[in-house]
């Protein structure tokens, strides 16, 4: 995977060069013990416990059934034997700009991604050399004791920390895709914030472009010690491209007492990608976890960020948008488990569907016995742009405690109004421009939570989606 972090960039380059002797390595298609062994031992030289963890996960993966929700039809098309589970960077070197699908190129052009970064796609790593700014930020953070690096490096350099938390929030037994990721994971970010440290600037990871199979099974773990806070942003100012068909990440967050984690994702996959991601957070006493999750592109996305409110006064917020277009299904949602008194949660889900695209909200609010005075509020808004698009909402509420508990759910489905369109068009905006403006307005509650450059980018991605120039 090609995680480029604007902090910790040096580590990344180190990792890259480190693998030079195996520069052109690609595991055979398909998944078996030998391949997992090869990834863990031969390629990554991992400690025994990780190798064991992977092998066990592989067994679990085999024994687990496919999910029976989302799009079972699309899922059944997924051929696990037709995937390269591990490809080392040389593949990128062999790649030419010419090999990049036309659609993606167009996106790059329109996004104004500089030539230098395009070269990165073709395997040139030097383009980050000039980014000294990042280095100074990193020094600043390092002084405070903050760890921000890629997961492979973390496993080498901070083995105890990784071992203590890795897979504890999302064990391989959780679901088929978590098991798969546990068996073949590679890359992702590792973040550790010392007690009381508040990281003011967001930590960013760009999943620029995934060349074949790279970065499709990333693994991210963030631990915020008591009283600390961090905002982590992953994503794409560029669409993440994968020539192969499966992206299956696992993201684990731990917010200790009084800590705060905000995790922002903007994904824009090309439309041949299955995006099946497991994201979960534990929030302890008075901790806050916020998932800000934007999903564009992909063929099928199944993603339900979760927060387990485990300590008194913990708070979870999940704010998401999903845009589905031609032949796409965004099955996204949120899960909150209230397991302690005085916990609160807010879920805001916004979906936009057009051109036979399908948007689904699938959510779970669970109030466990003893979680007295817990409050939960769910708002689902769907915007349908034409007759062929579809939107469904499947909210589930399991309330097992009554005392002082409130659970509210609001859902709206709207169409772009003819009157609104006329109003905007009477001001000279074309039909597409008017519609785009309405859609951008619809997602504004989401956009306004993003840092400026991400907000601008998201609006631009939406505009491109509306103009139909991105698949």
């Amino acid at each position, binding site marked *: 995977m090609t995680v480029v972090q604007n902090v910790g960039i040096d580590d990344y380059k180190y990792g890259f060069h480190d693998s030079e002797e195996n520069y052109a390595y690609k595991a055979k298609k398909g998944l078996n013990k030998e391949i997992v062994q090869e990834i863990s031992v031969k390629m990554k030289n991992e400690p025994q416990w990780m190798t064991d963890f992977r092998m066990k996960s592989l067994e679990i993966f085999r024994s687990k059934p496919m999910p029976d929700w989302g799009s079972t039809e699309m899922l059944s098309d997924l051929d696990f034997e037709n995937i390269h589970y591990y490809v080392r960077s040389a593949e990128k070197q062999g790649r030419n700009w010419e090999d990049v699908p036309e659609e993606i190129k167009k996106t790059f052009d329109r996004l104004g991604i500089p030539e230098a970064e395009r070269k990165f796609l073709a395997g040139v790593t030097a383009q980050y050399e000039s980014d000294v700014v990042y280095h100074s930020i990193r020094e600043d953070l390092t002084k405070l004791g903050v760890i921000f690096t890629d997961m492979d490096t973390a496993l080498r350099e901070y083995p105890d920390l990784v071992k203590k938390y890795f897979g504890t929030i999302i064990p391989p037994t959780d679901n088929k895709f978590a098991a798969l990721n546990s068996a073949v994971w590679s890359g992702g970010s590792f973040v550790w914030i010392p007690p009381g440290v508040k990281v003011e600037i967001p930590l960013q990871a760009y999943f620029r472009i995934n060349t074949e199979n790279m970065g499709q099974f990333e693994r991210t773990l963030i631990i915020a010690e008591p009283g600390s806070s961090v905002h982590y942003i992953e994503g794409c100012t560029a669409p993440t491209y994968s020539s192969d068909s499966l992206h299956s990440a696992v993201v684990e967050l731990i917010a200790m007492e009084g800590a705060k984690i905000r995790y922002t994702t903007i994904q824009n996959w090309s439309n041949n990608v299955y995006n099946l991601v497991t994201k979960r957070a534990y929030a302890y006493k008075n901790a806050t976890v916020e998932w800000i999750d934007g999903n564009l592109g992909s063929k099928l996305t199944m993603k339900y960020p979760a927060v387990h409110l485990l300590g008194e006064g913990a708070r979870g917020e999940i704010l998401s948008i999903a845009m589905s277009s031609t032949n796409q299904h965004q099955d996204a949602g949120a899960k909150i488990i209230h397991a302690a008194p005085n916990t609160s949660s807010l879920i805001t889900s916004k979906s936009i569907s057009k051109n036979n695209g399908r948007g689904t909200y699938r959510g779970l609010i669970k109030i466990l016995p003893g979680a007295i005075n817990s409050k939960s509020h769910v708002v689902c808004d769907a915007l349908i742009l034409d007759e062929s698009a579809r939107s469904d909402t499947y909210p589930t509420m399991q309330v097992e405690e009554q005392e002082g508990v409130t659970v509210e759910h609001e859902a709206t489905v709207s169409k772009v109004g003819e009157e609104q369109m006329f*109003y905007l068009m009477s001001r000279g905006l074309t039909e597409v421009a008017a519609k785009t403006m309405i859609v951008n307005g*619809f997602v504004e509650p989401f956009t306004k939570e993003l840092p400026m450059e991400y907000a601008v980018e998201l609006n631009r991605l939406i505009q491109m989606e509306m103009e139909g120039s991105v698949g």
Partner: protein
Amino acid sequence: MSEDFLVIEDLHVSVESKEILKGVNLRIGKGEVHALMGPNGSGKSTLSNAIMGHPKYRITQGSIYFKGENIVDMTPDEKARKGIFLAFQYPLSIPGVRIFSFLKNMMSAVHGKEISVAEFRKVLKEKMSLLGIKQSFIKRYLNDGFSGGEKKRNEILQMALFEPKLALLDETDSGLDVTALKVVCESINKIINPEMSTIIITHYKRMLEYVRPQFVHIIMDGRIVKSGGEELVEIIDSQGYDWLKQEALATSAL
């Protein structure tokens, strides 16, 4: 006689297969200000919507020429880019869309060129102070949660930035308090120039005392039944429309 700007011939308009306009004829010359009055439901908004090209208002017969060009088949945005502006009787709200970016987009769309943020800010500030609109206003979402009067002011702010060639003001006065009406009308007077034409739709003479029309038309039941000068405003203000009904009956009895 001044150059023709808007010429409407035998215009028939239906909404949901019900005929609302039943043969409207109207001629507006360059630089002229016309008032259009008529009872509720007589078809005033229908006429302005049809001129602007609202898809729901189907033109079944007749033609609309703007500067010699038949605009019947044009889309609203094409008409806007030709300089036709409609100040809505009931402006729509668009949640999440900030006024600032909306107005900026409108400006570049109708003037056909990008305008820098700095330049736009300057122009906007000037027009807003003219209309007595608070600066904080531009951060709000378009008409979202606006009072009736705020919406109307916002329409005229748009008009000021739009610099129309033909302005259709549909009951801009309704919802404005006495002071606001004065401020808004003064702004309209500043915008109006010899190069553009204006149609003012209103029920009351108050607005027409500020923005003085050279011609007044009265529409009833989908037809313009009387045209004249400012004197008609006074008559309607004191007598309403009943006398016109009598007159119409008398005419049809002939």
